[in-house]
């Protein structure tokens, strides 16, 4: 019985301690518009699931506590009806929590993130992943990205294989591991990779998208806070995956124009 008390205590302690520990941690501070929806989704899950987790562990503790003290078993078999009622009700309740969350909170965010057409004045950027850096490109004043060709790739001077003879290429702005964007404007980032799969991860912006060779997925979002943030790679891409690091600067509109002009001037 002492032993049973200890086991019951263990389950109760893990349940209570778990919720306490979880409540004390938080995601990187939010910096994007759609991210508020993702955080709402996460908070909904943390609260509902946290409560269920606590209830489950306390129930387990209570069942162990009382069970070990019992000399004669309780009712041997539940009726078929009672079985259906209990597990059916809890199963459906759980599905309601899970699916309800997706339908009520999740899908609107998902739609905002993926399905809303970006406005005409969105800032277009192309990011090409490469072991182990991010090649960043702005289309320049003409708003058109110059053509690229893998056979033109030259790590010394042309990491993405830009065809410099084309007219559209002339004003393209290239940086490495550094993205600068204006605050509160829609940013559309086209992702490419020239070797293996990378994943473009902006923890503070709730943005994560794999950069897959042969594909050009696009992420569209609105930064809401100025500052300098980190870019990480979230898909195993080789030896230096853990430091395929970049900087994502969110600045005011005039600062952005300044910065871009400085980059354009050779």
């Amino acid at each position, binding site marked *: 019985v002492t032993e049973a008390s200890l086991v019951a205590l263990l389950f109760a302690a893990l349940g209570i301690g778990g919720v306490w520990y979880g409540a004390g941690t938080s995601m990187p501070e939010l910096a994007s518009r759609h991210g508020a929806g993702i955080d709402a*989704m996460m908070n909904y899950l943390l609260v509902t699931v946290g409560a269920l987790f606590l209830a489950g562990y306390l129930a387990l503790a209570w069942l*162990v506590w009382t069970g070990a003290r019992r000399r004669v078993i309780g009712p041997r078999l539940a009726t078929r009806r009672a079985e259906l009622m209990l*597990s059916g009700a809890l199963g459906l309740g759980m599905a309601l929590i899970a699916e309800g969350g997706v339908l009520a909170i999740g899908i609107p965010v998902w739609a905002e993130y993926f399905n809303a057409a970006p406005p005409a004045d969105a800032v277009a950027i192309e990011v090409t992943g490469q072991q182990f850096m991010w090649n960043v490109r702005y289309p320049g004043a003409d708003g058109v990205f110059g053509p690229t060709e893998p056979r033109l790739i030259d790590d010394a001077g042309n990491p993405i294989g830009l065809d410099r003879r084309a007219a559209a290429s002339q004003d393209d702005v290239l940086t490495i591991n550094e993205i600068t964007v204006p605050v509160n404007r829609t940013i559309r980032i086209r992702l490419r990779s020239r*070797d293996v799969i990378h994943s473009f991860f902006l923890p503070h912006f709730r943005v994560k998208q*794999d950069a897959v060779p042969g594909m050009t997925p696009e992420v569209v979002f609105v930064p809401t806070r100025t500052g300098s943030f980190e870019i990480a790679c979230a898909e*195993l891409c080789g030896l230096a995956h853990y430091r395929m690091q970049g900087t994502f600067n969110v600045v005011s509109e005039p600062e952005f124009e300044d910065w871009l002009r400085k980059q354009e001037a050779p």
Partner: protein
Amino acid sequence: MTTAVLERPSESEPATPQPPHEDPHPEFLRTYVFSTDHKVIGIQYIVTGLVMALLGAALAVLIRLQLGWPEHRWELLSRLLPSGMPGGVMAPEFYLAVVTMHGTIMVFFFISYVLVSGFGNYLVPLQVGARDMAFPFLNMLSYWVALLSALTLVASFFVQGGAAAAGWTAYPPLSAVAAAVPGSQMGQTIWLLSMALFIASFTMSGLNIVATVFSTRAPGMSMMRMPLTVWSYFIASILGLLAFPPLTAAAVMLLLDRHFGTSFFLPSGLMVGNQLLTNQGGSPLLWQHLFWFLGHPEVYVLILPALGVACDILPAFTRKPVFGYRISVWSLIAVGALSMVVWGHHMFVSGMSPFTGEYFSLVTLTITVPMTIFGVNMLASLWGARLQLRPPMLFALAVIALFGSGGFGGLFLGNATADMQLHDTYFVVGHFHMMIGGVTLMATFAALYFWFPKMFGRAMNEPLAKAHFWLTFAPFFIIFFMQHFVGLQGAPRRYYAFTTYDFLRETRDANLIISVAALVLVAGQLLFLINFVWSVFRGSRAAANHWQATTLEWTTASPPPHGNFGGAEPVVHRWAYEYGLECGASDFATQNVPAERVPVTA
């Protein structure tokens, strides 16, 4: 030559009682090494799996040393592993190989071997009242192919470039191009060959279990009288048979891409290691679809037996029937069916269409219905119980606990919107370790403690086993619970170190605590090893029905003779949970007790 061992008496033979051992001096090799007896093969799988687990655990220690103390120089390890840890600091390429091999070994060569193939082999024929598996020779073949596959994998540590380093998911192009990472030289090829062998072996074994359940059940053993253990192995085996072939195909395609110039997974214009590749027209996403079409059912192949085993261990220590047997069976079937159509939830941010993502999200979360029902049934089985906290029961309780916390994590990851932030972070690592790591590990220990007396005719030491429980469950929970929140803070998985990012500064303390808990966990397993080895030779003698349980394996001797039931085929009269009766001195009836002696209650 002992014909008794080589030939299984055909089903049509009259069941004449035979002495347990026809030959008093059976040839050692035929009995213990190249045996077709499902019990010997089961134990072979279990021992092989436990040895592989030692390797997997050693790799886990290396991972935790690196993540807990990223800049520390481990002088001793530099002497043990001069190329992997030059100067005592782990090389990044070695870290990736260690992570890849840890995952591969634990999923395929520990849990699959011990819990699925090992206990599946040992228990299914005994619990359905058969003399052996439906195809004993195929069974032996499956074990030897499995052993070959394990040896092949271990050999890959010693080839040029080291072991495979593209993760256990082996996403191309990283896994397809030798120049992408050192492990993608010979190591990846050997990894793929080992996988192909593993799948061949697992298919033979799964086919055998399905055939055994269909065709060799004892008279009276209707499907709805089968113990949940048998049900879970039956469904897991069907899933394996349906899901594994696509991965075999994918493995062959990746081998062709690697060595014969095809482009299944490689698009045009790849520039790896300053070399422009000539491949054209392939798709890296194709691999992900094929891999996860296997990969998701595979987690249920591992976890369903864990749940089934726990359900059969519970009533022996609550002394009353499990709650909702029929509903649990239908839940297992529903989970099995649903698990085949949800693989895309591993690919929410892969570049797959976001509309497909929402489909996979909604279908994935419908799995919560049968899984919650199953979990609630396990928990409700403790209601009104006269609980006995013997070692198998402690681990069965741990199964329930981890199944709960692991399942809750699934609600986050199955939700595409939440997964956008959590994908490929430590939240995922924490989640799958709770489920296919923890639920299965706890069930494996529960099963080992529970059926050890049956296997070896001796009991394990209980105080030592209880100490083992405390040193296993608590640290395990702490490690992987905390990893969820390290992931919530944004820490990506498969990172060699978290030292370069500002936003991950807060995770360093958590990683230190996790590493300490991991060392406690691994050290605690020594108690089990000592207990296991000591008890095989010196444990106290166990009775035929050591735990007063009801399923058929407890109606024969411990260990059961060749042919299992001493020639007399059992006849089944009742379901597997006839506990809590009031019939004379005992409170239970085994499945072969006729209705005239003890009334049948379900």
